[in-house]
């Protein structure tokens, strides 16, 4: 089970990407939990996740979150974000898991 947490200001725009990422994960037969939260929740939800991806508009959260966790944290690629490219974002998450 791969657990990917997405974070943005209120978890709205990242939730668009969540659906697309879930679809991609299902299509390649991966079992994954992918969910989106706002910045007020991310500290708590981080414990559940294997990897945390941040919406590019909130990229100023990166250093703060990195300081709070040893798990991989990265900003989602802008173009993948804008086009709701679930495949690209999911692959970014998998790569981070190593």
């Amino acid at each position, binding site marked *: 089970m791969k657990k990917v947490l997405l974070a943005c200001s209120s978890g709205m*725009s990242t939730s668009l990407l969540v659906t697309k990422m879930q679809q991609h994960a299902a299509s390649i037969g991966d079992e994954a939990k992918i969910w989106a939260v706002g910045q007020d929740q991310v500290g708590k939800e981080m414990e559940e996740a294997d990897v945390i991806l941040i919406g590019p508009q909130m990229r100023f959260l990166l250093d703060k979150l990195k300081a709070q966790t040893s798990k991989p944290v990265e900003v989602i690629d802008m*173009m993948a974000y804008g086009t709701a490219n679930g495949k690209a974002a999911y692959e970014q998450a998998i790569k981070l898991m190593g």
Partner: protein
Amino acid sequence: MSQDNKMFLLISKLLMPMATYLNNSRYLQVLRDAFMLAFPITMFGSIVVVIANLPFLDKFMSEGTLNAFKSSLGNAPSATMGIMSIFVVFGIGYYLSKSYNVEAVFGGAISLVSFLLLTPFLIEVEGMTEAVGNVLPLDRLGAKGMFLAMITGFLSGEIYRFVVQKNWTIKMPDGVPPAVAKSFSALVPALLTLTVFLLLNIGVTSLFNTNLHDVIFNVVQQPLVKLGNGLVPTLIAIFFVQLFWFFGLHGQVIVNSVMDPIWNTLSLENLNAYTATGEVPNIISKQFVEIYTVGLGGSGSTLAVIVAILLFLKSKQLKQIGKLSLGPGIFNVNEPVIFGLPIVMNPLIMIPWIVAPLITVTVTYFAMSTGLVPPPTGVAVPWTVPMFISGMMATNSLAGGLLQLVNFLIILAVWFPFLKFIDRLNLKKEQEEAANHKDEAV
């Protein structure tokens, strides 16, 4: 790399620390959380105010019934936004303590009491020579006390956590139940913090014959709020929202960190006045900024842009972005347009992106200052409510929704020539690509 790109990267580098500071600063974060705490509470009060002021009620109720109906609902706004400063001061004390990992609920309670210690338990009633004692003046717990609540929340929270962290607490021997020990551990910090505020109040009332409510209201709150109610400061704020977004940074989150105390206070003043008299004193408020910018398809009011793309443009790539963006755009989520079109660091789009909302905000301001459209009543409307509906809800009038449609057309007109130009460039590129494919096939 082009000249534009170099310059943009440089500006982006300059804005980044500002964004980081404003979003991640402990105090601004605590303030944001405290207002979030108050949000569902004000939402409840707002819904009741909307019900009490439904425009058709006077059609099937006599005046007496209507007044009785309204006054029976009156407790809802009074118990919520009427005493908003209480929730804010408690929230600040709570979240500040939490951010320092000290017992948060005590922090909240101590901040609340500190605020009350500075509050005169008196009201002056017109026509009476002596003030009425033994009462809490409701207005000081609402909009009027907002800035004192914020200042007191932070000061008392800081003193409390400082004392706790210094470990000036009474230690209980082993075997004392944890809950009992906990209540004692808050004792010294509470006594010290509250003493400071009691002495402060004694000092101000006896030496200067006034109280901190009046001082902060007149010296800090009133001037700031008056300034915030002007067109020019609002345009500056909107300019920065757009500028941050242009560099792909969440403009609202950053700018609101600074402006929310002022905008929320203006909203609260509006709502209190509206509930009491039906009149709205301030044009600018949280709802003005939200409903007439974000409310038109997201930051930068991009629903018009999506519609223009879908109706008038031909490029495949743009059409695809338009289709993807329409659904979220109706509910004012527009990251797909911002990052997909893209708007971010796109020199061809910088002008309409920044100029269009400045025009619509100005138009909206004058539509309201001339009385053509009523200003938002202060009723909380979630920012995800679609255009037209949100405008009507916020102003309790059809005109408020129509004004959004006018703004929509203005945005469309400002963007159109720029979109057309991008469309032409894209079409040319797409045709070239198609031709290349053909060549390869041969």
